[in-house]
């Protein structure tokens, strides 16, 4: 759609202006001010002091990425190739971690793999040991395992989608020309899925590089990433160090985000008849292969389903007193100081506002993204991409320093929390609205024109109703992202602004495990319900949000 008058231009430019004010200006200004004001470390000192943390950030990101690829690749191949009953359920289960807030994942991991967790309890029973035997939910194993849990779905989704788009006749052609299954994988399948594999690698690395809640919870302060260090430096009022770290991190992440967007644009070209994807049932595999497949699914069950199911246990089981209790839920509905009702109300209030804002900005942004106007399209692409490459902590740091302090909002910074949640969720909201916009048949719009509808009539009676599923999906996405957001919120919030996600972290710190568990259960249920709603709406309209 080419904008035709001033009004359209203004509508399309609004989100760009808003994002400039809420994202570009704050980040640029904190970097600039932090580096020049002379408060705290210089850039060089920062690099020297943080060298071990930078190394650890990269190390854990690489290790997590390798693990995610190793676990995810077989899953992607099985999901694309294996024909079995309940495939949709398995697909949904595998995707679930992706929509869970990181702090909820932390709770699930503690309960599944941690001290006195499900596995530990089983081992203690099996070995008749009185003390804890195995604790995987801590330090490096905890961080890597949780990152793997988080990013395996990404690898599986991206790679299996690419495999399913592969023309099955291409593989048959290779087969009839004499290639065995290994040669077919090396020479045909691997080159085909390579773009999606690289995309998954970049995204996984990016997420792990910027990971905050998981590193904070499992690192216990001894293992820190750049993201954790930015938060620390800000708390120590060392703005020089914080800003230097933001600059270093942004150089890494924006490069990767840019590489990713390039790749996404030029991904696999040759498409065949997707209806005839070559799948085969389990019975067509050799016995050893069947055993491997079953073992893989069992491992996935422990890694993926285990932590999710354990959150139920975490909500009721008090590991300190070793008993089941409803104290967690009593906490949530307690309106007293230190009770969970306030965070719950805050969570719902902030994320609802963030949802409204995201949709309000996302609709014009999606149109600007599809516009053919010079400047508008590339600018909006950059704006959509930026939040992917700028970490939550950086967003929060920028908003606090450049917006909250000058305006006095730092006394009660709840609007800043809403703004941060909006900015962080916006790319996802925009994306789902854009998918829906692109699927609208332009002939329908022309038809409305031909029937004499005015521009406004056309917008309200034709375009928006057609766009409604996409907007709904975008809204649910924004809500799920906002309600689970912990990093920026923790950075900004004063105790009266705590959300449920922040309260979970806070409760964990003081070993109030059931309170954290019950809160996590509520967040998880909210996110899963949101996810199911999203899948339902988008399947009916554009064939699944997760197919991008």
């Amino acid at each position, binding site marked *: 759609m080419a904008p035709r008058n001033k009004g359209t231009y203004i509508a399309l430019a609004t989100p760009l202006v808003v994002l400039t004010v809420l994202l570009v200006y704050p980040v640029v200004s904190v970097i600039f001010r932090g580096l020049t004001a002379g408060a705290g470390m210089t850039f060089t000192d920062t690099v020297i002091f943080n060298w071990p943390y930078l190394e650890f950030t990269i190390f854990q990101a690489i290790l997590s990425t390798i693990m995610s690829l190793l676990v995810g690749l077989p899953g992607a191949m099985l999901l694309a190739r294996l024909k079995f009953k309940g495939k949709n359920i398995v697909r949904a289960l595998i995707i679930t971690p992706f929509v869970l807030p990181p702090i909820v994942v932390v709770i699930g991991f503690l309960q599944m793999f941690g001290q006195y967790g499900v596995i530990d309890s089983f081992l203690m029973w099996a070995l008749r040991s009185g003390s804890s035997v195995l604790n995987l939910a801590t330090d490096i194993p905890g961080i890597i395992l949780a990152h793997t849990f988080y990013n395996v779905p990404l690898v599986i989704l991206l790679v299996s989608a690419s495999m399913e788009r592969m*023309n099955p*006749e*291409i593989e*048959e*052609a*290779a*087969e*009839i*020309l*004499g*290639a*065995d299954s290994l*040669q077919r994988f090396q*020479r*045909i399948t691997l*080159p*085909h899925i390579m773009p999606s594999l690289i995309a998954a690698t970049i995204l996984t690395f990016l997420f792990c590089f910027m990971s905050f809640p998981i590193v904070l919870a499992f690192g216990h302060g001894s293992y820190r990433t750049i993201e954790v260090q930015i938060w620390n430096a800000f708390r120590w009022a060392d703005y020089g160090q914080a800003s230097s770290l933001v600059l270093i991190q942004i150089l890494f992440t924006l490069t990767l985000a840019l590489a990713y967007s390039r790749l996404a644009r030029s991904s696999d*070209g*040759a498409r*065949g*008849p997707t209806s005839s994807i070559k799948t085969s049932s389990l019975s067509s595999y050799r016995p050893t292969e069947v055993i491997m497949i079953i073992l893989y699914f069992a491992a996935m069950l422990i890694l993926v389903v285990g932590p999710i199911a354990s959150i139920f246990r975490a909500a009721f089981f008090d590991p300190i007193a070793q008993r089941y209790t409803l104290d967690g839920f009593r906490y949530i509905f307690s309106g007293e100081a230190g009770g969970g009702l306030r965070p719950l109300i805050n969570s719902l209030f902030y994320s609802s506002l963030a949802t409204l804002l995201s949709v309000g900005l996302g609709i014009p942004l999606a149109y600007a993204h599809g516009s053919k106007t010079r400047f508008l399209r590339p600018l909006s692409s950059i704006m959509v991409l930026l939040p992917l490459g700028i970490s939550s902590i950086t967003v929060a740091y920028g908003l606090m320093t450049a917006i909250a302090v000058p305006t006095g909002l730092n006394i009660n910074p709840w609007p800043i929390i809403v703004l941060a949640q909006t900015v962080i969720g916006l790319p996802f909201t925009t994306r789902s609205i854009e998918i829906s916009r692109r699927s609208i048949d332009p002939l329908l719009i022309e038809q409305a024109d031909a029937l004499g509808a005015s521009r406004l009539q056309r917008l309200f009676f034709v375009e928006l109703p057609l766009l409604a599923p996409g907007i709904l999906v975008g809204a649910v996405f924004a809500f799920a992202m906002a309600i689970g957001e912990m990093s920026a919120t923790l950075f900004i919030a004063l105790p009266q602004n705590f959300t449920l996600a922040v309260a979970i972290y806070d409760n964990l710190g003081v070993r109030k495990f059931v309170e954290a568990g019950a809160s996590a259960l509520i967040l998880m249920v909210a996110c899963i319900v949101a996810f199911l709603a999203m899948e339902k709406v988008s399947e009916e309209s554009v064939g699944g949000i997760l197919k991008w």
Partner: protein
Amino acid sequence: MVNVELKGLVRVFADGTSVGPIDLLVKDGELITLLGPSGAGKTTALRMIAGFIEADKGSILFNSKDVISLPARKRSVGMVFQSVALFPNMSVYQNIAFGPDMAEWPHERTVRRVEELAGLLGIQHLLDRKIDEISGGEAQRVALARALAKEPALLLLDEPLSALDPQLRERLQTEIRSIQKRVGITTIYVTHSQDEAFAISDRVAIIKDGRVVQVGIPEEIYDRPATEFVAKFLGSGNVLEGVVKETKDGKSFIDINGIVLDGREDLTVGETLRLSIKPEDITISSDMDSDSAKGRVISIIPQVGSFKITLDFQGAHVVALSQDEALVKKLREDENQTVSFSFRSEDAVILKD
């Protein structure tokens, strides 16, 4: 090269549909086409021969040796796919050389073979191109070269030209035919287009509901369709019902709503028969005095070289081709005219079912 024999080939799918039993003999160096409407089982049959679909029953004999237990890559078969299916990550050269590479041919032999085929197909100038840099027709030639590179015993083509425009399709039909003759490779070709089948084949096998209903050279099938299905599918079109009226001196007389045909043997009086008469065998005349049958003109459609005239003959449609322009002009002036038509008894073919 190879003789291919399919014996009682059957495949039943999970959804209950089935193909077969198929019996077919393809002679060494012959090009045979499996022709039938979509869903008839042509492609399934071809994929069973290739080894992509397992047969439940029956055997596939290459020179009397059963290959049914061999995987696709060991059957010495070359195949051109409906979607062309060139490897997008390789150049034209690499695509053609893929088979020889897999068979671990010495490098010089591979190069010589690729160049030989490229010369044969006129694609020498494309060898360094990427797959997305060649046109649809060029892609078909590359696919054919790739299928032939490893010197397979049998070549399979699965509707290779269906995605091309009609002119290019016709040109490539001729090319495929001449290359097949030059290489002398036994070939099975699948198509749903009668024109294509007739243009390219030594023999045609008509497939319906997973079975071969008639095999023969194109003219034979066209002139003497075995069943009503074949007659209608090939577009010869006119199928009329008749009854055996009497037998005299070993000859039977068939009555088709007043048209009496003679000259058939071994028929029982009272038997109902279906007969096929090709449009070009029917003569139309405006002379109403003759005792030939009468029909009302429903439509006149000009075609290349003739007019297609459809008549209503006592509720049945009869299609005739006429080159008589004066007659057509007259008929067109006044609609709903009645004309007389006739055909020779020996041009009516008795259909089997």
